[in-house]
């Protein structure tokens, strides 16, 4: 493409169909605790 460069290949939609197993790490959002935040987590399936 001349005008647009897409930098990622994944599509969230595809993850919905197969997702939701709940095996991934809990992800604390609190500022006092560096547990995982959501977006950098790994899928553990």
């Amino acid at each position, binding site marked *: *493409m*001349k*005008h*647009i*460069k*897409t*930098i*990622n*290949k*994944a*599509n*969230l*939609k595809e*993850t*919905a169909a*197969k*997702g*939701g197993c*709940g*095996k*991934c*790490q*809990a*992800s*604390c*959002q*609190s*500022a*006092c*605790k*560096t*547990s995982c*935040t*959501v*977006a*950098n*987590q*790994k*899928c*553990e399936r």
Partner: protein
Amino acid sequence: MIHKYKLGGFNIVLDVNSGGVHIVDEITYNMLDNVEPPFAEKCPEKAMQKLSQFYSVEDIESCYNEIVELYNDGILFSEDDYEKYANYSVASPVKAMCLNIAHDCNLRCKYCFASTGDFGKGRKLMTFETGKKAIDFMLEKSLDRKNLELDFFGGEPLMNFDVVKQIVEYARSKEAEYDKKFRFTITTNGLLLDDDKMEFINKEMSNVVLSIDGRKSVNDYMRIRVDGSGCYDKIMPAFKKLVSLRGDKEYYVRGTFTKHNLDFADDVFDLYNNGFDQISVEPVVCEATEDYAITEKELPAIFKEYENLAERILENERKGGKFNFFHFMLDLDQGPCAIKRLRGCGCGNDYVAVTPDGDIYPCHQFVGIEEFKMGNIDEGTFNTEIKSYFSKTHVYTKPECKKCWAKFYCSGGCNANNFQYAGDVHNVHKLSCQLMKKRLECAIMLKAFRAGAIEE
């Protein structure tokens, strides 16, 4: 829904619902203000008229065709059709626990959310008996989940380290019987670290969070002992030693920035220059009346500093350096599934906190808020109504989140912060939202840079 912005020399377009990230040229950036689905075969006359003042017809047409192609591929202007999945995690097993092993602390950090360690309820240490029952609770309530997470938290967990060791030993003794695997983590201020504790932590804890704010002057202003003296000179060598002995296992040095160090990029780099490569420095969350509080007024300076930090990280990478800044870490390709992103932390549903008295709360931030007390480990009580309430709390039940471009990255934010500072779990803590969005913009920009850098 799309979100577009300019940062670091890039024109960035995020397709919110597919997660697609596109770097676009100027004409595309402008055209996206003038076109939207449904798309006709040719560029609409109105858009053509507007753009042809600046660009050639040929360019406008080719740009339009690319936009339509990405739309047809489902990675631009894609629809939000995830709400139907929002009920997936109802009645989830409890697989993660924050064990407040010590409601006591040997520091008196001025910004402590836990009232300098006792959570406003008096200084107490957890007994092994209560810790053992907490493990039994997890073994039972985790149902078919194999990986269980247990975080030793406080207060300062090292003040009750013998009990930490007993609990770890007990949990390990049950793993084979129950077909479970415990992942332990511990958060410490480092004051009581010695060789034996380091050895145990490095052997048993899959992650360790080491609390330090950055520069000595910054750290010692906030993180003080009972006598008022700073702790930097004691903890820095201890943290360096622990990390040097840790091998490949995860750790974080973790600091808090406040209104008093809005130049926190210097703190991040001070930690890096001290040899740490896993770094988190996060904004303080507190009442706006505190003298160190971050308020709306500080946001422009903080946004600028996040950009400054991102630029310094890029500069460092160009020179061959590398470290992870926790809040800029983002996995655009193999991150969590969309369903996980609807709910985020799972507090009160698949994650709970337990106090030294055995009281169960949705998470460590809710500890002491009576209306959220879920039960007691020693008494064997567990209120599933509160659990159900949290299982039904997700981005589609939070009006502000529903329309936000960042919802699949932050997942509705911290429920406890929402409750404490916005009055309800479903109301967003706007200050945290704005910071989160800025960090995400920076994180995506870094991804854009790295994607370009790889091609070069």
